[in-house]
C-alpha cells in the first residue's frame, strides 16, 4: 500500500497496465511531458515511445486509430485532454467504437479505454470545464465510469483496460490532487458495474459521482452536525447504472437527493429520479430533489461558483425533503 492522490493512482494503474505489451497509451502530449495533468508522467521513459505515443492534435484521429488498434487485438488507452475536446471524436465514439461489436455480431470488438478528464472548479479556460457525460451514457454500447477515490481510480482503470468492451473513463479534474488515500501496489480491479454505498444513514439518501462526491461526503458531515443521518451512494458507473444500492437505501430513508454538476435538462439525475420512483415510489416521503449544474454554458473562472453545486445547495435540498 502506498498513499497516493488520484493522479498518482492513475499513473500507477497505467504503469501496471503497460506491463502487458498489447497495451498502448496514445494522445496529445501524453509522452514527453507526461500529459497536461501529468497523469502519464514518466511512462514514455519506462515503456518507450512506440507504446506511449504522442499524437498529432487530432481527437478523431486518436480515437479512430485506437479503434483500429483495438480491432487488431491491442488494448489501447486513448487520452482526450479535456471533455470539451472530445466532441471532434464524437462520431468515432458513437458510430464506430460503440457499435462494432453489434454491427459485426461479436466478430470484431473494440476493447479500448478513452480517458477523459472532465468537470469544472479549477478556473480553466472555456471548453475545459465540461461535464457532458450524459451524451456518452446515452450511447448504447459504451460503458461510462468515473472514480472519486484513488483506490477506485486505479482499480477501475485496470478493470477498464481489461474489459472486453469500450470504456469511457472520466477523470475528475478537481479531485486529481485533492483526495489522497491508500492504494495497493501491483494489479487489482474494481468492478465497473457496481455503485457503492459510501455512508449509511436513515434520514436521506444522497446520490453522486465523480468530482461531486467531495461535496456529497462533506454534506454527510454537515448534516450529521445538525443531527440528520444521511446515506450516500457513489454511482462510480454511469452506464450501466447500478441503482440497487440507491433503491435499497431510499426504501429505508424515504428521501433522496441526486447531485451532479452536469446541466440539469436531460442529465443523469432525471434518469435516476425516474428509476427510483419506478422501484421505490411507496417508500418516498418527499419528492426526490436534484442539485445540478444549470442549463447554462459552464461559466468562466470568476462565475464558476454560481454553477457548480455546493454543500450549501445540497444541504438546502435535503432540508426541503425533510420539510415536505
Amino acid at each position, binding site marked *: 500500500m502506498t498513499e497516493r492522490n488520484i493522479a498518482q493512482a492513475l499513473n500507477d494503474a497505467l504503469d501496471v497496465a503497460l506491463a502487458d505489451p*498489447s497495451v*498502448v497509451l496514445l494522445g496529445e502530449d501524453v509522452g514527453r511531458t507526461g500529459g497536461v495533468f501529468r497523469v502519464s508522467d514518466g511512462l514514455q521513459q519506462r515503456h518507450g515511445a*512506440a*507504446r506511449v*505515443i504522442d*499524437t*498529432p492534435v*487530432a481527437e*478523431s*484521429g486518436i480515437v*479512430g*486509430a*485506437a*479503434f*483500429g*488498434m*483495438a*480491432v*487488431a*487485438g*491491442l488494448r*489501447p488507452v486513448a487520452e482526450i485532454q479535456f471533455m470539451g475536446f472530445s466532441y*471532434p471524436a464524437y*462520431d*468515432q465514439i458513437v*458510430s*464506430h467504437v460503440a457499435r*462494432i*461489436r*453489434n*454491427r*459485426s*455480431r*461479436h*466478430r*470484431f*470488438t473494440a476493447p479500448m479505454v478513452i480517458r477523459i478528464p472532465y468537470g469544472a472548479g479549477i478556473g480553466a479556460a472555456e471548453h475545459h470545464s465540461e461535464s457532458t457525460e450524459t451524451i456518452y451514457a446515452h450511447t*448504447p*454500447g459504451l460503458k461510462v465510469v468515473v472514480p472519486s477515490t484513488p483506490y477506485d481510480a486505479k482499480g477501475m482503470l485496470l478493470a477498464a483496460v481489461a474489459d*472486453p*468492451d469500450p470504456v469511457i473513463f472520466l477523470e475528475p479534474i478537481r479531485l486529481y490532487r485533492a483526495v489522497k488515500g491508500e492504494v495497493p501496489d501491483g494489479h487489482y480491479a474494481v468492478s465497473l*458495474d457496481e455503485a457503492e454505498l459510501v455512508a449509511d444513514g436513515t434520514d436521506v439518501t444522497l446520490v453522486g459521482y465523480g468530482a461531486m462526491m467531495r461535496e456529497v461526503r462533506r454534506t454527510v458531515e454537515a448534516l450529521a452536525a445538525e443531527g440528520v443521518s444521511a446515506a450516500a451512494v457513489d454511482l462510480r458507473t454511469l452506464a*450501466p*447504472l*447500478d441503482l440497487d444500492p440507491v433503491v435499497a437505501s431510499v426504501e429505508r430513508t424515504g428521501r433522496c437527493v441526486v447531485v451532479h454538476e452536469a446541466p440539469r435538462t436531460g442529465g443523469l439525475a432525471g434518469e435516476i429520479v425516474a428509476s427510483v420512483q419506478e422501484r421505490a415510489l411507496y417508500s418516498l416521503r418527499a419528492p426526490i430533489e436534484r442539485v445540478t449544474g444549470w442549463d447554462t454554458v459552464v461559466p468562466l473562472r470568476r462565475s464558476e461558483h454560481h454553477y457548480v453545486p455546493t454543500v450549501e445547495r445540497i444541504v438546502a435540498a435535503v432540508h426541503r425533503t425533510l420539510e415536505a
Partner: protein
Amino acid sequence: MPAPPAAPQPLQILTPSGDLAADSPLPLARIKDLYRSMVAARAYDKKCSAMQRQGRLATYAQFEGQEAAQIGAVAALEPRDWVVATYRDAAAMWFHGYPWLNLILGRTGDERGGHAPAGVNVLPPSITVGAHMIHAVGLGWASLVRGDDAVAMTFFGDGATSEGDFHEAMNFAGVFRTPTVFVCQNNGWAISMPRERQTASATIAQKADAYGMAGVLVDGNDLLAVYAAAHEAVIRARAGEGATLIEAVTYRMGPHTTTDDAGRYRDADHLAEWAARDPLERVRRHLEANGEWTAEWQHGIEIGEAETVEAAVEEAEALPAFDAGDIFDGMFVDLPVALRRQRRAAEDGAG
C-alpha cells in the same frame, strides 16, 4: 484566377481495346481468374439491384464500373491483411473473403451480415462517409506495435476526401509511417455532386505529397494498372516505407443508390463514354486476343457465378429473423443487469 494545372495522365497498362501499353504485372492465368471474379462481382451487383426492385431489400448502392478498381487492388493483398471499406465496395470485400451471404444479409437488414468468418480480415462496410479510413491506420499501426507485417487497405470515394477524417487519417499515416494503402475510387460523383465540387486539386493523388507519402494516379478501370499500383504500395508498406494514396479514376455507372435518380443531375453522354472503357470488356478483349476467351466459357462462368450468388440469396432469406431478445445480444460480452431487464421486457412485449 489562373487555370489549375492540367491533371497528369493516369497510369495505364491495359488499354480499352485490350492491348498492353506496358509489361503486364500478372501472368495470363491470374488475369483470367481475376476476370472471372469481376464477372462474379457484376452478377452480385445486378442481383442486388433486381432484389431492390422486387422489394426484397430496401436500398442498394451499385458499384458497376468499379470492379477493376476493387478487385485489382485487393489482388495485391495476402489473407492476413485487412480490408476496411464502404457500402459501395462489395467486390473488394468479397474478393478478400467476405462471403456473398454476409453482404446480402447486410443489405437485407440483418446484423449477422457483419460477422465475417473467422480469419477473414474484413470489417463490416462503413456506412458513414469517411470515418473508416483512420481505422485502417490503426489496424496497420498495430502491426508496427506487434512487429508483424500485416497491411491495411482502405477504400473510399472522392466525396470522402472532403471529410475532416480523411485529413486525420492521411496525417497519422504519414507521421507514423503506418502500413496503410489508401484506395480512393474517384468515380466522379458523390451522390449529385461532381468531383470538381469536392476539391480544387488537379488530382486527389497529389494530396499525398502534403502528407509525406507516395501518391499514384491510375486508370481505375484498368485491372492491371490498379494491381500494379497496389502491389507496389503493399510492398512499400511491408518494408516499413509507409503508406500510399492510390487514386483510381473510374466512373459510377449507376445512380448513388437504388433510391437515387442520376438523370436529375448528370448527362447520359458520360455514360456512353465510360461504357466504352468498361473494366471487364477490356480484360475480355485481352484474354480473347491471347486465346484465353471463348463465348462458351463466358456463358458458363456467368451462369455459374449467378448461381453462386443466387444460392447465397436463398440462404440469407431462409435465415429466421431475430427474436426481440436477440437485438440485445450484440451489445456487450456480458449483458449488464439493466439491459437484461430491458431484454426480458422486450421478449414479453411489455414496458
